[in-house]
């Protein structure tokens, strides 16, 4: 039983990372219909920036704060310079552009930081803490806490502020949003900024356990896509829960289903998701659009 709880908590920690990245993907998809394949590499780049700041003698938390800020600015600039010029072009073009962006950012991080994996010392020790006879890793608990806090903050921004209302309006119906005075292009840029922030959180939280290298987030991106699809591509809540479910599922399957082992974990997880989608094509939390003419 203790082992089971440990595995669940450890799964929640990875799941929080998948969920944060999935949320970033869903935010952009909802607003623009674009699947941002570069979201993982953007997160890796953020993690490298954080690593460099720490390498230059910064303490973790100030470095993390600065990384969040820089990532936000980077997301906004990326939208304005790369995405905006072709925003109204064919969707496939934009998707290919984000794949190009993935390759470009990957090349950039390899060029600047080299391909060798770096040790990233996170803010939490890997030492276990004992709670009622069950040993949890401090790092897992810390990662869960950070993921929850960032996701909740983003949620509050979207549901409780005027800015969030504008973001939702721009995503729901851009033409209509402009009519009430919302500056839609600004909202889209802001959306990319926020997605980059979530990516930065995911990247920095993943780095201590995955080792920092240019391809670090590629598998995580796959899991994040799977989580987003599982939750329902247009549901922010679904993305986060999808991430958590997937994290726990992967961990439990890897631990208890011995013939699966590490190699087949992804395949099993995807099979489960496929099963869910057969029953609920819009995902667990996806809505089929209600529309009345």
């Amino acid at each position, binding site marked *: 039983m203790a082992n089971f709880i440990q595995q669940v908590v450890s799964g929640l920690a990875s799941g929080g990372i998948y969920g944060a990245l999935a949320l970033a993907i869903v935010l952009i998809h909802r607003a623009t219909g674009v699947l941002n394949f570069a979201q993982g590499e953007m997160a890796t780049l953020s993690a490298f920036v954080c690593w460099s700041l720490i390498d230059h003698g910064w303490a973790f938390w100030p470095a993390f704060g600065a990384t969040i800020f820089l990532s936000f600015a980077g997301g906004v600039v990326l939208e304005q310079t790369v995405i905006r010029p072709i925003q109204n072009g064919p969707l496939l073009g934009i998707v290919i552009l984000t794949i190009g962006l993935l390759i470009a950012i990957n090349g950039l991080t390899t060029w600047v930081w080299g391909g060798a994996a770096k040790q990233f010392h996170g803010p939490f020790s890997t030492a276990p803490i004992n709670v009622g006879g069950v040993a949890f890793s401090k790092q897992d608990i810390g990662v869960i806490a950070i993921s929850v806090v960032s996701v909740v903050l983003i949620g509050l921004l979207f549901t409780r502020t005027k800015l969030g*209302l*504008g973001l939702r309006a721009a995503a729901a119906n851009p033409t*209509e949003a*402009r*009519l*009430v*005075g919302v500056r839609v292009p600004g909202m889209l840029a802001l959306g990319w900024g926020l997605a980059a922030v979530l990516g930065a959180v995911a990247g920095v939280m993943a780095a201590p356990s995955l080792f920092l290298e240019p391809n670090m987030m590629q598998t995580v991106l796959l899991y994040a896509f799977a989580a987003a699809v599982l939750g329902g591509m247009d549901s922010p809540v679904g993305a986060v829960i999808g991430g958590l479910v997937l994290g726990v599922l992967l961990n439990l399957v890897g631990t208890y289903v011995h013939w699966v082992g590490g190699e087949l974990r992804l395949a099993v997880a995807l099979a489960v998701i496929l099963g869910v989608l057969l029953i609920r094509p819009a995902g667990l939390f996806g809505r089929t*659009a*209600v529309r009345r003419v």
Partner: protein
Amino acid sequence: MRSSTGCGSDLSLLELRDVQARYGEITALHGVSLTVAEGDFVAILGANGAGKTTTLRAISGTVKTSGDILFDDHKLFRRSPEAMARKGVAHVPEGRGTFSTLSVLDNLRLGAWVQRGVSPRDLANVFEFFPRLYERPDQQAGTLSGGEQQMLALGRAMMAKPRLLLLDEPSLGLAPLVVREIFAALKQLNEGGTTIVVVEQNAALALAAANHAYVLETGRVVLGGDAADLKANESVRRSYLGY
């Protein structure tokens, strides 16, 4: 020539001078000129495809135009819908534009986007006009009935406290009772000082509510004047009033 009657004054709030608009190859407006005075209730009549919707779009900046558009006696350059909203133009588009995936309350809040904040008094005012919205603040707009959606669209426009309210076929597809409710609300808003331009297929209804009217045909203004005069006009009666 126009004489002002009713609550209209001679101060022009909006003027279109030879406004032309096109969608790609298709020219929708071949030079529309019209004037709307502060406090006016103006009806725009015309057959399907005459350019009524495009005229409203020209005013709210949702379609590119040539010719001059003056608001408050200032010529407007580089118009955009967001800029026009900021100037006090609220446009309720054809087919009741609401954010169908957002709640009733969020829709109303968005109406007040150009305001400093969501004033509880304005909100109470909208709910007083349309109690049916008050009963379902959290309902998703897309699941409202057609009449409720039109009320929401109008309520959202009211939240912006517009100087100029543009409405595109507000009566379309609604039950007569609901239509009467909507037009009663419009009349009351107009008496409160809001200038209104309404596009309507239902000419009798529009001419009864408005104090001025224009008739569009294939992208041109062919008639304009007092609503009462147009009601008496032989060709308007035959083409639009059907008697």
